[in-house]
């Protein structure tokens, strides 16, 4: 099988029903997407497929069409994405486990809605965080979109 991931063509063997998450993590050693629930409920495994957020734990690899971007693919060398910069400015993460997914969900949101309101953020940011970083995620999204937090 072949997929375009973070700008590179990657070739691999996998059972066709293997979720994209496990192809990325176990076969291609791309560890940014995390395993949380396996049922698309928490979003820790979020990746972008052609810019759209997808919960890769519930996405069989043989059905994947499009270019995949993981957290490893949104920065440009040492230059971080503006969402990552905002995450640092607000010191968003605690345990950090859900944050790859949160950041990619935020990148996708800002792609669709450049200046999201609180309601837009509530609606789009459905990824779960057990540490309770939501207030800072919201503030960081505002900052990344150029709005005062």
């Amino acid at each position, binding site marked *: 099988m072949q997929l375009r991931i973070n700008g590179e063509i990657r070739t691999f063997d996998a*059972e066709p029903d293997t979720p994209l998450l496990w192809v990325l993590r176990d076969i291609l050693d791309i560890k940014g997407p*995390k*395993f949380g629930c396996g049922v698309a409920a928490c979003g820790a495994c979020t990746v972008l497929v052609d810019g759209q957020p997808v919960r890769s734990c519930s996405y069989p690899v043989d059905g994947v069409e499009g270019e995949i971007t993981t957290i490893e693919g949104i920065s440009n060398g040492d230059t971080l994405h503006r969402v990552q910069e905002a995450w640092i400015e607000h010191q968003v993460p605690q*345990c*950090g486990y859900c944050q790859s997914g949160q950041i990619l969900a935020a990148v996708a949101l800002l792609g669709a809605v450049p200046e999201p309101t609180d309601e837009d953020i509530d609606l789009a940011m459905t990824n*779960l965080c057990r540490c309770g970083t939501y207030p800072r995620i919201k503030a960081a999204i505002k900052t990344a979109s150029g709005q005062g937090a």
Partner: protein
Amino acid sequence: MARKKKSLFGKIVRRTFLTAGAVAVGGVAFGAYLVNRDHDNPLVAGEGEGVFNPFVKIATDGTITVITPRAEMGQGIHTTLAAMVAEELDVPLSSITTEHGPTAAAYYNAGMMEEGAFPPAFHSGLGADAQRSLMASMGKVLGLQVTGGSSSVIDGFDKMREAGAEARAALVTAAANRWSVSPDVLQTENGSVIYAAGEQSATYGELVLEAAEVEVEEIPALKSRRDWAVLGKRQMRTDIAEKVTGAPIYGIDVQLPDMLYGTVKISPRFGAAAVSFDDTAARAVPGVLDIVEIETTTGKGFGIIATNTWAAFKGAEALQVEWGDAPYPADDAGITNRLVAAIEAEGTQSLMDRGDVDAAFADPQGTIIEAEYSVPYLAHATMEPMNATAQLTEEGLTIWAGTQAPGIVQSRCAALAGLDKDNVTVNTVFLGGGFGRRGEVDFPLYATALAMQTDGKPIKVTWTREEDTTHDTYRPAAMARMRAVVPEGARADAVEMKVAAPSIIPSVIARTYPNLSAAGPDKTLTDGAYNQPVNYDNFRVSGHAADLSIPVGFWRSVGHSYNCFFHEGFMDEQAEAAGMDPLAYRLAVMEGDDRLDPARGVLNKVAEMSGWRGSVPQGKGRGLAQSLCFGTWIAMVVQVDATDDIRIEKVWAAADPGTVMDPRLFRDQVIGGAIYGFSAALGEEINFEDGQVVQQNFWDYSFMNMEQCPEFEIELLQTSPHIGGAGEVGTPPAVPALANAIYAATGQRLRQMPLSRDVRFLGV
């Protein structure tokens, strides 16, 4: 003499995990030799490196490495422990590299054991101090390297600053020797020793090899608080870069050459084993290499060994097993019956019995009110499911795990593999959430069990979310029956609280120190009920340990997680019976005891922040709760909008931990702790049917999301005489403040958790 004391202590420690009660009652003295002896320094200097103590090493290239030997599970402890060293070493935090470091007794946590002493935090004096000091000694002698009980800052405060001061003193002495001047004329600044008069300076890297040879006789005086340049100020988290780039820092990210992948399927009935099984279909799953039986002190079942995690998961699903019966009541009704039986029987402990409660009820000077409260079992639900990696070769066993207790992992896994613990290396990595769950040993034990079947290849064993939810060490179900005699317009004359729950400490000890028995009362059973800032004339709190063998463990704030709901919910009922405002009533309950000034301080502060005395719009309500937990005083006001489905709108909290190391990290812990509590109120519960946990995954065990999350305003005070914890203090008051707010808005008194059983919340 020393020898005799040592052997006496050795026997006791081998047989009994002492709780403070046993220490006090038994009058046991620890041998001074053991208490005063320092543990060996596990750090060995590499080429071009100087080691000053178990916490600080400096390389000739100027790299300063600080060992931060506590589990980083989000609380920012690596940042704060490193900041303590930075403060005394006179370097910016940004110049320090942190490492969790090896597993060693030198990294014992005396602070956590000290919190286990029975006297309330505001009690001082000979008896209370002696008990705390005995408990602290036990932490040191046992060499307990554990992260828990909100104790890392309390434990590390002197230790880490002294480690920095010791290194600095050695560096200064080395420079003084080099320049043949007195150390007194030298200063340190930004990683260099400076001799201003002689216009000389040398970096720490230049001095380190000479400095490492210097014997520091006496650790210099530590800086006073007003001179702090790093502590007390917001710092950038030392782990921030990894955590915004998806770096492979967690246990689940471990990757080793030739690594296999696995999962487990452990009996869903705790304590039971398989009666029969059929692994034909499981073995037929492509990628499945082997199915093996597992038998450990924490559970019995099967391990699936595969070429990737997904294949292991499918193998587990295909494995057909008939499990034995549960050795406890099979459903919620049976469990509740055990709690009722316990609460109706004589109490198993009473850590508070003041005045004459029976006389006060026999001749009541006021209205008698009574209430029954209850809470269910709860799961931790860390975002990263349980997992560990293990490799067993001729050289020994190596474990990689996000653990809160690496020393216990080392000894338990050694026992399973039949090795001496010196042949077991535990590498502690970052934790994708802990909350008490990762102080357990089941996940590294199962990885070890599988590694014993892989011919020397490493294996990463990851649990499914369903396995994680159904095999937790749960926050106990609990019940309280309370009554009070309340005069009109004044505080209660007498209060009685009976609390029934399965006891946590014996359950934990059976898994972590199976050769020991737990002796003495279990403080956690009534923690947050008996030791609160109240000054009733007649007050009794009894604990009633219930006979239930479902595994229970430390869940963020432990006993406080349910006792604060009981205590502060019933407090509002007392206020109502007295015809008093909940704030005024609480202040009246504290009256007459100067030691409770910090409690009054946080209450008045949160009242001011929230405009408590002002009016609340129609359909909305505000509730108040306070707590003294893990040495920190906290008061919280929650505002709800109950015009439609209940929405938690706004939360104000004031906390007083005495000294704040990092105000942002502390604030974030209070917020996160409160969200953890609200999440439980919004619908978390673990139910039992057929001896098994009903809930499976986030679809039936979920927690607060972005839409449900309120706004927060947090203020920190620093008046308390002792340093208090941060990690757990936001959780206890969240639930009662919310329940009291709902009562204020709707007139509906909520006495059972989750509150969602009785009211509808937004988005639930």
